[in-house]
Structure formats: C-alpha cells, structure tokens
C-alpha cells in the first residue's frame, strides 16, 4: 500500500518534471516566434489604422489608409496600377515557368545518361544570391553592349531596350525570375513524376498509345496534385516578388514594373509612410491568404512559404 503510494508519487513527480522540461524546451523557439512572427502579425493590423511615419506621433484614422489605398485617388490609382502590373507579371511568369519546368522534368525522367549533370545545371541558379545574379543579368540585358542584343543583332532581329523600355522591362524581369526559379519547380515536378506509377505508363505504351497520348491520358491526370501544388507556390511567390524589381528596374520605366510588393517597400522604407504601407501589407497578405485557403481546401496540404528569411522572395 505504502509502496504503491510512493510509486505513484514518483510517477507524478516525473510527469511534472516532464512538463517543466517540455516548456523549457519550447520556450526559446516560442519567444523568438512570438516576438518576430506572432506579435507583428497582429501589430501590423493595428498600425494600418494610423497616419504615422515611423518617427513622430501616430494619429488614429480608422480605415482611412484602406480607403486611400483602394478607393480614393491619387494613392488608389498607384495601387491599382501596381495590382495590374503584378497580375501581368503573374500571368506571364506562372505559365511560362510551369510549362518549361514540366517539359524539362519529363525529359529528365527518361532513361538517359548524365541525368544528374543536366539536373545540376538546370537547378544551380536557384541557390545563388539575387543581387549578385541580377548584376550579371543587368549586363546581359544592357541595351547597347549586352550579349542578348548582340545575339539578336547577329540573327538580324531588332534589338530591345530590355530593362530600360516599356513593356520590355517586365518581360526582362520575367526572364530573370524564370531563370532563377526554374530549377526548383523542375525538381518538384521530377518528384511528382517519380511518384506517378511507371507500370501504368508502360502498360499504356504497350497498348499502343504514343508518347503524347500516354502523357495526356495517364501522366497528366495522375500528376495533377503536384501540378496544383507547384501552381499555388509559384502563384504566391509571384505575388510577393519584389527584390529583382528593386535591383533591376526600381519599378521603372514609368512604374511599368512597380509590383504591389515593390510599392510596399517604397512606401514603407523610402517614403516612410508606415501606417499606409502597413495597409498595403495587410492587403497583400489578404490575397496570399485567400490563395492558401483555396489550396488548403482543395488538397489539405500545407504550403511552406515564409521560412528561412524574409530576404529571399
């Protein structure tokens, strides 16, 4: 009887010790995530209700920032212009990078030699820093001495002003981003294709279907979860894109490359319209959150997109 009590006491002691240790283990992570992720998420909504420029006093103005942003010119004109630029960018970038990476992934899945070599070459751009590689692309795009225009000249095609022209600047940004991100979606497509049953494809091939037929009727439907996942993450990252804009065009010429993300950066850290910029951040978050919700409803899978560092986007 007493022994049992002692044992129960020991067990309780151990349970309490486990609770204390557990909280000790999660506290460092919770403090950092609390201070730099949870608190600011709530705080930014609060900030968006003020007229405030970082230094100086805050004036509560309710929803005025949102009204200025979405409805009342001149700011709303800027915003809707940026929204259209962002949509144009998304509409170009997402299909191009998805089509190219799916095509390359299908080729890489064939029983060929040097596969890992090709894969390496296609992937390597993804891990390299944005500013450093933007420098090279700025030089490649140079309107007078860039190698891209030299090639066009050799082919007797008209040169393009690329980053200095409208609408070529947006295309140049798309080219740069497709180049930088292509390897990532290619690897994801390859993983998806590996999962699609080989036997099913082979069976279809034996039944006399040609390569395109197998792809169209067997591979493509089976691959659709992967395709949808890649579509969502590339949609989200396209909506957020702004570092290449900052480095390559500063939003120009004539704001033709000013995306919502770049407008947010400029309002927040060049004009110091902190309250107004917070409202932009909230709206951008709303767009991304909606996409995430749709994705989550459809597949139940989580999208990772805010990890690592805010520096990368």
């Amino acid at each position, binding site marked *: 009887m007493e022994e049992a009590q002692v044992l129960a006491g020991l067990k309780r002691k151990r349970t309490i010790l*486990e*609770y204390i240790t*557990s*909280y000790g*283990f*999660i506290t*460092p*992570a919770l403090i*950092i*995530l609390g201070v*730099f992720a*949870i*608190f*600011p998420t709530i705080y*930014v909504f609060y*900030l968006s209700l003020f007229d405030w420029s970082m230094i100086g006093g805050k004036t509560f103005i309710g929803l005025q920032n949102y009204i200025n942003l979405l409805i009342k010119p001149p700011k709303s004109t800027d915003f809707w212009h940026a929204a259209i630029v962002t949509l144009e960018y998304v509409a170009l970038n997402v299909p191009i990078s998805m089509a190219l990476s799916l095509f*390359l992934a299908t*080729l890489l899945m064939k029983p*060929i030699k040097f596969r890992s070599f*090709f894969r390496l070459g*296609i*992937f*390597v751009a993804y*891990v*390299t*820093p*944005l*500013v*450093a*590689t933007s*420098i*090279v692309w700025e*030089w*490649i795009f140079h309107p*007078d*001495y860039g190698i891209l225009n030299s090639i066009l000249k050799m082919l007797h095609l008209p040169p393009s002003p690329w980053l200095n022209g409208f609408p070529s600047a947006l295309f140049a940004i798309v080219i740069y981003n497709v*180049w930088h991100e*292509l390897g*990532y979606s290619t*690897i994801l497509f390859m*993983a998806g294709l590996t999962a699609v049953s080989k036997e099913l494809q082979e069976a279809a091939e034996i039944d006399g279907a040609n390569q395109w037929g197998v792809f169209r009727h067997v591979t493509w439907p089976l691959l659709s979860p992967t395709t949808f996942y890649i579509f969502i993450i590339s949609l989200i990252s396209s909506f*957020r894109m*702004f*570092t290449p804009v900052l480095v390559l065009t500063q939003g120009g010429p004539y704001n033709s490359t000013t995306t919502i993300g770049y407008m*947010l*950066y400029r309002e927040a*850290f060049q004009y110091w319209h902190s309250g107004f910029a917070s409202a932009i*951040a*909230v709206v*951008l*978050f709303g767009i991304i959150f909606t996409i995430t919700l749709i994705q989550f409803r459809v597949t139940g899978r989580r999208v*990772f*997109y*805010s990890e*690592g*560092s*805010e*520096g*990368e*986007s």
Partner: protein
Amino acid sequence: MKTNLKKSYFFTYLILAIATIIMVFPFYWMIVTSLSKPENLFAYPPKLLPDFQWKNYVDMWNSNPQGVPWTRYIFNTLFVALSTTLLSLFNSSLAGFAFAKLKFPWKNQIFMIILGIMMIPGELLLIPNYLTLFRLHWLNSYQALILPFGASVFGIFLTRQAFKQLPNELWEAAQIDGCSIARFYFNIALPIIRPTLFAFALFVFLGSWNAFMWPLIVNTDPRFMTLEVALYSFIGAESTNWQLLAAAATMATAPVLILFLIFQTQFIEGISRGAIKG
C-alpha cells in the same frame, strides 16, 4: 521502333543540353566579364573567352566600397549565417523534440499555432519587426540579422518528424535507466537525426547568406552590412565598371556555388521530399 526510340533520345539530349547551357551561361558570362579588359567589354561581336585580367579582382578588392573593406562584409555575412544556423538548429530541434516525444498540457494547441505561422508571408512582418528593432536599439547590429531567424517553424516541423522516427523502446529504456530528458536529447536523440539536422542547416545557412531585403532595411551602417547589401550599393558606386561589378558578384556567388556542388544531393533530395520552402 528501336531507331525511333534512339531518335527521340537524340532530341532529349539536344534539348537538355541547350537548356543546361542557357541556365549555366550567366555564371560563365559573369566570370568572363570579371576577367575582361575594360575595352573588350563593349566589343561587337562579343568576346566569349576571358582575357584573364586578374587585375580586376585586385581593383575590386581594393575598392573599399562605402569606406569598408570587403573582408568586413565577408566576415559579417559568414558570422551572421553561421550564428543564425547554429541558433536556429538549436532552438528548432529542442522544440521539435518536445513536440515529438514529450507530453505536456496544451501541446497540440501550441503546435497548431506554430504551424499557423507558416501562412504568414515575410512582407507582413517587415514594418512591425523594423519597429521592434528600432525600439530595442538594435538597428545596425548583428543581432538584427540573427535573432529574428533564430527559430524556424519549418525546422521545428522537420526535426519533429525525424524525432518521431526514434523507436519508443529507446526512449523508454533510457527513462528506466534514469537518463534525464536533456541528456537523452543531447547524447542520443540529436546524434541519430544528424542527416536531418545537416540538411536543415544547409538551407538556413543558404537562406541567411542570400538574404537581402531584411538586411538592406535594418542595417544601413556599412560596418554591419552583408555581402548582398554591399553589392547592391556597389552597383550604385561602380555603375559602368562591369568588370568590377562582375568580379564582386563572382566573389559573392562562388561560396554558395561551391557549397552547393559539394552537397548537391542533400539540397536536391531535401527539395524533392517536398520538405523545403518555395
């Protein structure tokens, strides 16, 4: 049929070779430009082979952008990347272990909140986090670049999955032997999940090395700038000296390229497991 197959593989090789050349060419062009004599930069047709003008690198190295030597920028970048990696590895795996193996009140609720953080894009946090650092007087410091990334939801998630793979018998046996939780974590659990920790460390290090937006905003004092931010201001200073810009870009890219070439399997497998950020 056979010749048909061969023919189709010929086109596979051809397309893949062209794609690889296009994807790798910018790096080649960066090196060629960095070794080019200034007068050859503007040649038409362009000179595709380098001049091996190593002097460009000396000039770049001696340029002291914003009055700070490149060694300082390199040190900053390395120091920040290594500290962030160690800190995040430590904090995330500790929490990951607790969520995988320990029982405590509110465990699932807390874990759901942490997972919810994954839905928050970094842009939303820029302004309030800048303000937090401003109030702490941490603008222009190393901790400004390290602490906000000192724990990662993704890392917690990843290490939790790995710790869950540990057989429960091992954990029970250790408890019966009177091994404390902390000792079990440090001496037994951590060494077992080394491959996961290593893959995670690679991605944190890379993310920190390549980070740009956050360091650009919080550290405006050149003495605390990282390479990417220093490069950005170097563009403004040397706007037409493409050979110097390319040399600096090569310097900032080379470490990442080398790291990637050594550990390419871990990188690519990490991503294809669907585990890595987009």
